[in-house]
């Protein structure tokens, strides 16, 4: 567009090792300025475009935290870059995925957040999304609870509560809704970041896109969303998805960040069952492959590592397999009806559910549910057949009648 350009500044992964070679930045910012901004951001993850809302031209950007430190450093280029994403006279929102407390503590380690004084056109919102070992512990507790076959209702509910898993789901969904609300309802641009901008930031930006953009709810669209916002954006899959829930050794970097994202997508899918081209099975498949896969797609921590390992040459891509016709049909939602609207999920605790397809997959009897699913598909297919048949017969009848009349005229 007129306001944004592609920049090849990161061609050799020289500026930011966890970014892809090509990124989208405001047109008025030069590569030189970008280099300076990168110095000011944690792990050099300078603000880049994540999503452009066609409806009103508002954008969502993501980055890592600014390195303000305790003495409030500032960076003119960073301010210029961020302001460049705003239309004249418009305001924007910075969504910090850490609580104010955590963000303030980060200053001691050289990190920090944008001061209102230096970014007067922006309002900052803090939302506490948990990270790392807290999420990992949550997952371990949840899996433990789900495997408990005892018949004690109170124990089940208190274990489910103690795992905090659904709290995390609600927190992430709420923040994503907030970002989407800023863009679609308030007509404001948004910048999302946490500390590194590789975890909670990506959960928020990708979920906001699913809410806002109908293309992300198609199979192809969702695949490219995962590629763009997770793989290319440098979510460290290798570190986060090494062990899953049954590990004894405590891995410092292990965290079910991507699984939480998929869980949130499933929650939205459950509330808008007709608006997604894919089904639950698709999400479960992605979850499995993110932990262990015969495909190279989720290997490594970022594009630079994948390039070094020559993964694109040495391994197959998951997408090429998934997109084959026979596989694709397993992932298609039979009741999909393209919905061009923004979909706002409910986030009340009464509206959220445990993702039984993942967490109770091996513990619950699923035969009847699967049969019911098949029956549903049958009804839909039968409906199509009948529709077609009626059309053919109508035409046939019209022809017969016309012929009869023509005969009469003769």
């Amino acid at each position, binding site marked *: 567009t007129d306001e944004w350009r592609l920049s090849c500044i990161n061609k050799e992964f020289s500026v930011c090792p966890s970014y892809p070679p090509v990124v989208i930045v405001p047109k008025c910012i030069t590569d030189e300025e970008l280099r300076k901004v990168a110095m000011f951001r944690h792990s050099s993850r300078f603000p880049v475009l994540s999503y452009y809302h066609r409806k009103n031209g508002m954008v969502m950007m993501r980055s890592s935290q600014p390195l303000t430190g305790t003495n409030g450093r500032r960076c003119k280029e960073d301010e210029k870059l961020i302001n460049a994403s705003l239309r004249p006279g418009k305001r924007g929102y910075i969504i910090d995925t850490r609580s104010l407390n955590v963000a303030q503590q980060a200053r001691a380690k050289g990190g920090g957040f944008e001061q209102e004084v230096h970014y007067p056109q922006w309002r900052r919102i803090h939302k506490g999304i948990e990270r790392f070992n807290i999420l990992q512990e949550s997952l371990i507790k949840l899996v433990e609870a789900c495997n408990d076959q005892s018949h004690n209702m109170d124990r089940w509910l208190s274990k489910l509560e103690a795992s905090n898993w659904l709290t995390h789901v609600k927190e992430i969904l709420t923040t994503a809704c907030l970002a989407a609300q800023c863009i679609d309802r308030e007509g404001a641009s948004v910048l999302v970041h946490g500390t590194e901008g590789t975890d909670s930031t990506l959960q928020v930006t990708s979920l906001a896109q699913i809410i806002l953009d109908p293309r992300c709810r198609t199979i192809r669209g969702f695949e490219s969303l995962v590629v763009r916002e997770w793989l290319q954006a440098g979510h460290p899959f290798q570190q986060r998805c090494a062990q899953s829930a049954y590990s004894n050794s405590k891995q410092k970097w292990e965290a079910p960040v991507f699984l939480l994202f998929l869980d949130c997508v499933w929650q939205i899918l459950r509330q808008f069952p007709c*608006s997604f081209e894919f089904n639950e099975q698709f999400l479960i498949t992605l979850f499995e492959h993110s932990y262990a896969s015969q495909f190279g797609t989720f290997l490594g921590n970022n594009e630079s590592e994948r390039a070094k390992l020559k993964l694109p040459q040495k391994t197959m891509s998951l997408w090429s397999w998934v997109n084959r016709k026979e596989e694709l049909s397993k992932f298609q939602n039979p009741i999909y009806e393209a919905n061009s609207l923004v979909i706002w999920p409910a986030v009340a605790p009464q509206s959220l559910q445990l993702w039984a397809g993942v967490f109770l997959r091996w513990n619950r009897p699923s035969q009847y549910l699967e049969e019911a699913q098949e029956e549903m598909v049958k009804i839909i297919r039968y409906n199509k057949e009948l529709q077609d048949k009626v059309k053919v*017969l109508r035409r046939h009848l019209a022809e017969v009648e016309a012929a009869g009349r023509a005969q009469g005229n003769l």
Partner: protein
Amino acid sequence: QVEQVKLLDRFSTSNKSVTGTLYLTATHLLFIDSSQKETWILHHHIAAVEKLPLTTSGCPLVIQCKNFRIVHFVVPRERDCHDVYNSLLQLSKTAKYEELYAFSYNPKQNESEQVKGWQLIDLAEEYKRMGVPNAYWQLSDANRDYKICETYPRELYVPTTASKPIIVGSSKFRSKGRFPVLSYYHKNKEAAICRCSQPLSGFSARCLEDEHMLQAISKANPSNRYMYVMDTRPKLNAMANRAAGKGYENEDNYSNIRFQFVGIENIHVMRSSLQKLLEVSGTRGLSVNDFLSGLENSGWLRHIKAVVDAAVFLVKAIAVESASVLVHCSDGWDRTSQVCSLGALLLDSYYRTIKGFMVLIEKDWISFGHKFSDRCCQLDGDPKEISPVFTQFLECVWNLTEQFPQAFEYNEVFLLQIHEHVHSCQFGNFLGNCEKEREELKVKEKTYSLWPFLLAEQKKYRNPLYNPDLLPELTLLEPNTVSFNFKFWRNMYHQFDRSMHPRQSVLNLIMNLSEQNKQLEEDIKELEAKIKQRNGQPDVVLVKEHQQSAHPAPVALKTPPCFKKEQPPIPGNDAVRTIEGSNTADNRYSELVSEFSKAEPAVVSLEYGVARMTC
């Protein structure tokens, strides 16, 4: 009539509201908002009215309903609010049965339709379906005039070997005279579910007739001489009852019985459990953990699970051991009804059909004297008698429908609708506490039966995935009762809180599709018949057209080859019109589809849960 009344959104954090006019009619409270949307609330549904302290915008009035609707009005003038409050208090509390809605409700049916409606469910027919009377079970006329037990129906089935003196003796030894009678008979296993109230055993009392009665029941089962006696109460409660001269059966005194407690709590525990549940679910800005711990503390799901577990125990005794089971609690009209009816539902697929479910409710709840009037507070009575026992039964059934999506002919809407009318007092079925009371009220002459109305609109209540062939008659359902199978029933407790529901309903979609399939099937038949009729005309047509087929019209390319010969040489006006006709029929489908998307708007305001931007 009060104007300029605001209706607040219950869960809105920013006090979003709509303004409209409030009307009070003889039977309903009606609110019409500025967009002409109407909200009707039946006075009988109102459980509580509360006036909150005056605010700057007016006087808030909160109305809680028995169907879990909660509305929050703000009336601009305090005097109006006070008037509304007082009128509602009066209108919602009825002192006499004759003043209930059912006695004034007129659905424009003539007398014979009314009579036929009441005859729709025939319990004698139902016992015949089960296979009684037979060599072991017979109809007893002991209670024909309600002489032995006022809360039982007139017609009761007992073992053939149980003579009248045994029945009378046994009834004197049972609380409220509710002696053991047949509730369900399993043809294939020749085993029976019987029900009664607790024995008046105290610490050591015995009753020979009662012992004979139980023996008669076990002898009526040729496949297994042993029988189970299930006391559905927690052991502690049952023991406490002994001090009051009641209690439970002593295994030493009865031959061939196995005694078992199953531990379902009493009506008071259930009432306060539901209260706690509603308090939690009604909290604004509720966090996940508060919700889950509130759910746990309320104990509600634990109680639901206890009822299902009890039914599973009962069903196993019958299906696996072919043993008869006698179920009781204290008076044998609350927990006993829950367990007997749920057990029968698991055993017999008939009760999983729409009609069968009506029969089940008529039999185990209405005829055996579940005190609907007291439990649902139909009249202004003792608040300690109110208890959601029947609601729990419906919730148990709902949980089963979730586990067995193809086993039930009815859907969730059916259960919700029944719940609605148990409290609405619009139909006569649930009025009063027992059959005798209903006869005295002349319910069958003065009011209408609910069931024909539900049957008439059964399209709405049908489960489109229902497949009776999958589970043939008398196939046992074996639910998994590990805790995680029991879920919070959002569509019951938040039925009227649209913001919490999924925005698109798979059930509705599939229901519409399968409805449409039926229509299409008929269309096809009709069309085929018409075509046949047309083709029946002299063969000359075909011959002539063979000659004309030298000039194929462009449309012919798209149609299958066999149609070619009937291609009209010149498309006449009539032909064009027919094609238009078929187009509109096709459009009907697309209209339907667009209706879905209109009915479930994808755009909703972010009022609930989503954080407001207040920083």
